[in-house]
């Protein structure tokens, strides 16, 4: 007999945490501006948020700008090689001190009154200082620094200075970050560019999507019919028992779509390299041994899984998906293309073409995702007492020895993990 669906609609007495119930979610999580504001304070300004990859700021003085919630920050490598994440806000009257997406600088100077700051955030100089004698000490007015942590080249920052160590926050996800980076095939991973696009919908709709195997053959039917049969077959995980989703704690989860590519160092030799890559195989074989050619070509589609890290980044097969909440009903997404740092150019270019094929506002995949997400945002305004369901696969979910909950990749175990973390953070 089917279990009845239990849902307690929101009342004036409901706390935010009450809105995430047993595998169902109140639709106001997508639509209530007050919840969005609370999420900024309780989640985005309290936890570790991904801000960049080390390859983006390779040399001293290299910087990129980023956003954490509504707050602009600068991610910069200082002269000593240390990575700093600084609030992008002059200590005088609040203007941003840097408006470029990325670059190399010796410091940052506010355009308003020329207060200048070092790469470590220290206030170096201010013009006509006589008006500040006995008024301020420069040492008291650096650009504010965030806590910074890095793992596997992934840079995270937090406004919460006494936050738990990044390694603890990532927990079981660290193993999967290690596996993900193996797509460098012996080379370090580097960022090769990014697509940015916006959709009119709540950020959690995107957070859910990277662990939503269920939508893939429906929404991405035209992508699947546009690729070669081998790639299409590689992505046909709907009824594959080896294709599973794992909750990893702290809101993180992993969804395995291509089990044979989970650990790219493991190769039993049975996999036929895809015909579409024959021109690359021919070219690489001129200078590389067959094992290395095979290792690189098997990695061109990336790792065989999506690692969803709460709250804002996913390591999704061959790219990073980064979400940035703009308002309760608008989200920006970046799809960061990856390559092999120092690896063969022909293979890196192929990775760019694979990225362009699916990702971004002009890709064969992302626009259909965005359309679905905007429909969720629009539709969830109807039926205020009707829950959003994240209960798929509850009937077959099991707990592994290490405590991970496991189910099929088309199940909503990863979403339940993310909402459990949301609930935990929102009730603090």
């Amino acid at each position, binding site marked *: 007999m089917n279990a009845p669906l239990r849902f307690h609609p929101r009342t004036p007495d409901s706390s935010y945490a009450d809105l995430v119930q047993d595998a169902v979610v109140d639709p106001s999580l997508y639509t209530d501006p007050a919840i969005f504001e609370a999420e900024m304070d309780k989640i985005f300004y309290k936890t570790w948020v991904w801000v960049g990859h080390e390859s983006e700021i390779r040399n001293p003085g290299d910087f990129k700008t980023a956003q954490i919630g509504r707050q602009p920050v600068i991610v910069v490598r200082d002269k000593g090689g240390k990575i700093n994440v600084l609030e992008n806000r002059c200590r005088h009257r609040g203007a941003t001190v840097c408006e470029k997406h990325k670059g190399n600088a010796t410091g940052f100077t506010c355009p308003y009154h020329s207060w200048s700051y070092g790469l470590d955030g220290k206030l170096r100089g201010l013009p006509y200082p006589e008006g500040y004698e006995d008024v301020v000490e420069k040492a008291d007015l650096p650009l504010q620094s965030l806590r910074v942590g890095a793992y596997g080249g992934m840079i995270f920052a937090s406004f919460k200075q006494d936050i738990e160590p990044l390694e603890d926050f990532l927990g079981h996800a660290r193993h999967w970050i290690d596996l993900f980076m193996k797509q460098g095939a012996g080379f370090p991973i580097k960022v090769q560019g990014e697509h940015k696009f916006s959709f009119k919908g709540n950020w959690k709709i995107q957070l859910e999507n990277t662990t939503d195997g269920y939508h893939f053959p429906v929404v991405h039917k035209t992508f699947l019919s546009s690729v070669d049969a081998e790639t299409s077959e590689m992505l046909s995980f709907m009824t594959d028992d080896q294709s599973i989703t794992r909750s990893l704690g702290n809101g993180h989860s992993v969804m395995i779509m291509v089990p044979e590519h989970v650990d790219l160092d493991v190769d039993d030799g049975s996999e036929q390299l895809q015909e579409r890559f024959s021109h690359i195989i021919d070219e690489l074989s001129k200078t590389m041994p067959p094992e290395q050619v095979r290792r690189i070509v098997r990695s061109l589609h990336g790792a065989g899984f999506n690692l969803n890290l709460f709250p804002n980044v996913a390591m999704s097969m061959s790219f990073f998906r980064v979400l940035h909440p703009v308002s309760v009903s608008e989200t920006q997404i970046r799809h960061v293309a990856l390559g092999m740092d120092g690896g063969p*150019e022909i293979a890196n270019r192929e990775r760019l073409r694979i990225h362009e094929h699916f990702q971004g506002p002009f890709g064969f995949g992302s626009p*259909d995702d*965005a359309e679905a997400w905007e429909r969720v945002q629009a539709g969830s305004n109807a039926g205020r007492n009707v829950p959003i369901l994240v209960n798929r696969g509850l009937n077959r979910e099991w707990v592994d020895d290490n405590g991970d909950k496991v189910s099929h990749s088309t199940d909503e175990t990863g979403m339940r993990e993310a909402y459990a973390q949301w609930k935990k953070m929102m009730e603090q």
Partner: protein
Amino acid sequence: MSENLQGIPEPMAKAIAFIWKEAELLDRKDYAAWQDLWIDDGFYVVPIDPETTDFAATLNYAYDNAHMRKIRIERLTSGYAMSAVDAATTVRTVSRFVPVHLSAELVEITSAQVLVGYKRQQHTLFVGNLTHRIRFTPQGPKLEQKVIRLVNSMDSLNALGFLL
């Protein structure tokens, strides 16, 4: 009827007429007819980096050879891509033509495109500089390369269910 516009060299006048015809086909979403405007080894490019000319070495929004154009059009016209089924209605204006290269065989011409898409009670602007390279063949003028440099290519775009 003469193909000459007053004071405009004939190859440029022919190219402008061709570009306007292309714009009308795209607004009408007659992608099958648009596909026939191309020579086989032509490239349709929507770059991200505003400076790059080495499109193969950089990440683009679109970098379509004949195969990619073909499967892109199959996708847009299949009836199964929901972003294309519900694509914005578009009206585009192409003007401010400046010749880069003019000869009887080949014209390269830059222009400004202001495209307005309308969808779900909202108008969205897609504004960019175009470069068309048009080769005059025995079968008539054909597109050899079209590059669309959106003014906001480095920033966040709305997802597209149509061609620029």
